[in-house]
């Protein structure tokens, strides 16, 4: 048998001489239509490696997790979530997304969907008091396209059982809508796509539906929805109610749009063009948002807009956003979590600000940042990269949908739901890992971006 290196060399020659592959026609950059750009706008917070190092050193002790701590057991027989239920969508044993619940220290269980329903249940969202859950459902999958989408609301029992209370059809050709609750729990908003087919260009545009939970008669804000992704499973934070429930903020390429519940009018915040993800401050005076084209080649800005339209500040200048659902303001209001892709950073002059390949950062509203160390479970050296990170209701933990940085021996990427305490002295807890890895062949790549797990929502505890 020919030795391996010779085989590799000859295989390489085959590729290099293939006119369709290695020696393909040169790339032509159209310099007439592609304009050279000047550096982006600079904000108040310009990073320097020294500053990053100082901040890191100051917070390093807080970021060190206690070693040798045993993971919390995940098999507790009772079904009472002392710290609130966590809902998530997962492709676990079948070929579509179903809804699951899990509590800290408990075993996850499926609450909606089965192995043969050929429906995706996505975007679970707990009501603010934790007694109800809203989610989107549709026939089909992201691979086949969707039909007969519906917005569904169910009551959540103390033991995590769900009892459907109502469902609203969102159109024969629609995908699962992703709902968000008003703070009083009386209204739900969701973006409804014009098409359920991810390959249809109209898929990413549609209407915003405002649905009162009492009479379920929707108000439709036509053509106001611009989805951030072709796939509902790639939910990003594209709309959110103000903490007082008077306004719904919606991302839009032309700027953040605010819909007033009282007078049913919309206004656009100045200087918020290209807002892609948003999150209200708990006091309702500001909105943090990521601004950028969404192109992987373009960098992103983290900005904060005053809701009274008095101005927009830049918190973080020029970074590459990494998966995630955008910035999320902590329930306590003192921190904002966001994700950064540092793989592209290494060639830049300011590469020193990055510590890891994919980072989760906490920033204060004033822009003081901490980079969280790579996420590792107790007794396990493997690094879990962040896919989506949100907060627990009390602001004491971060909830990660995560994936392993390197594929396993079969080239598959294990994914997991992990709760990470903000207190660095407390160990992260593995909440759920699908029993099989990536059964949905078209959906998972070697970087784990296929979202075998999608969406997480952490409720306040329901008292028995």
């Amino acid at each position, binding site marked *: 048998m020919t030795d391996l290196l010779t085989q590799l060399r000859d295989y390489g020659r085959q590729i290099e001489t293939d006119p369709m592959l*290695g020696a393909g026609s040169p790339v032509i950059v159209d310099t007439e239509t592609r304009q050279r750009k000047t550096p982006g706008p600079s904000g108040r917070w310009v990073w320097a490696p020294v500053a990053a190092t100082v901040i890191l050193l100051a917070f390093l002790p807080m970021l060190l997790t206690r070693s040798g701590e045993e993971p919390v057991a995940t098999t507790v027989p009772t079904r009472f979530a002392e710290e609130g239920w966590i809902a998530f969508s997962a492709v676990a044993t079948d070929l579509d997304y179903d809804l699951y619940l899990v509590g800290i220290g408990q075993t996850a269980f499926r609450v909606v969907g089965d192995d043969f329903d050929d429906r995706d249940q996505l975007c679970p969202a707990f009501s603010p008091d934790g007694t109800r859950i809203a989610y989107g459902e549709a026939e089909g999958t992201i691979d086949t396209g969707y039909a007969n989408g519906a917005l569904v609301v169910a009551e959540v029992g103390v033991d995590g059982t769900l009892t459907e209370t109502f469902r609203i059809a969102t159109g024969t050709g629609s995908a699962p809508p992703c709902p968000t609750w008003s703070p009083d729990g009386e209204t739900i908003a969701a973006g409804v796509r014009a098409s359920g087919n991810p390959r249809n260009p109209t898929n990413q545009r549609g209407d915003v539906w405002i649905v009162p939970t009492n009479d379920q008669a929707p108000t439709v804000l036509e053509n106001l929805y611009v989805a951030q992704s072709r796939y509902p499973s790639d939910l990003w934070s594209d709309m959110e109610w103000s903490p007082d429930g008077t306004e719904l903020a919606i991302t839009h390429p032309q700027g953040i749009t605010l819909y007033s519940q009282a007078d049913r009018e919309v206004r656009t915040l100045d200087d918020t063009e290209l807002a892609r993800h948003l999150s209200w401050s708990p006091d309702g005076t500001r909105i943090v948002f990521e601004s950028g084209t969404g192109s992987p080649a373009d960098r992103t800005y983290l900005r904060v807009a005053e809701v009274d339209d008095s101005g927009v500040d830049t918190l973080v200048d020029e970074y590459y956003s990494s998966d995630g659902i955008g910035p999320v303001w902590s329930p306590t209001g003192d921190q904002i979590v966001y994700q950064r892709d540092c793989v592209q950073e*290494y060639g830049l002059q300011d590469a020193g600000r990055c510590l890891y390949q994919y980072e989760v950062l906490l920033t204060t509203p004033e822009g003081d940042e901490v980079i969280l160390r790579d996420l590792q479970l107790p007794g396990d050296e493997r690094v879990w990269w962040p896919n989506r990170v949100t907060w627990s209701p009390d602001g004491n933990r971060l909830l990660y949908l995560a994936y392993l940085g390197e594929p396993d021996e079969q*080239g598959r990427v294990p994914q997991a739901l992990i709760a990470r305490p903000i207190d660095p002295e407390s160990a992260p807890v593995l909440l759920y890992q699908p029993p099989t890895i990536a059964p949905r062949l078209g959906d998972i790549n070697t970087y784990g971006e296929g979202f075998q797990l999608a969406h997480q929502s952490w409720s306040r505890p329901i008292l028995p």
Partner: protein
Amino acid sequence: MHEIVEASDAFTEFAQVAEPRLRLALGAAFGFDLAEEATAEAMAFAWEHWDRVTAASNPVGYVFGVGRNTARRSLRRHRFPYLPPVLASEIPWVEPGLPRALGLLSVRQREVVMLLHCFGWTLGEVSEMLGMARGTVQTHERRGLARLRKDLGVEQ
């Protein structure tokens, strides 16, 4: 005007050298079906942000990072990178299972093994393109080759 012409010349010179190398490196990492588009996007980015590219300590590595991110996002719906099948009529001594075995390597291992051994790059060239220390390149090479030998059942 004079400045723009100079920039164009410099870019053209850069592109002539970097583009074919980017295509091979991105193809090794993410599959050759995605490499062309990712290379095109990376080169367009380089043109648009030429100041940044020239300011980078490792321009080609920087542009490779752009292409890598583009390809990585395009890869969402693919499980394995596309590596062309072995043309048994032309190179019958190459195992037909070689592309699949390469596809099962980690991205880093595959990048390193293919650039070093399929395309004959030097250690320094691979190190520069991938922005990786030479020692790290060698580690990925060693592990990648060991796994290939195991998967293909070859001893040498």
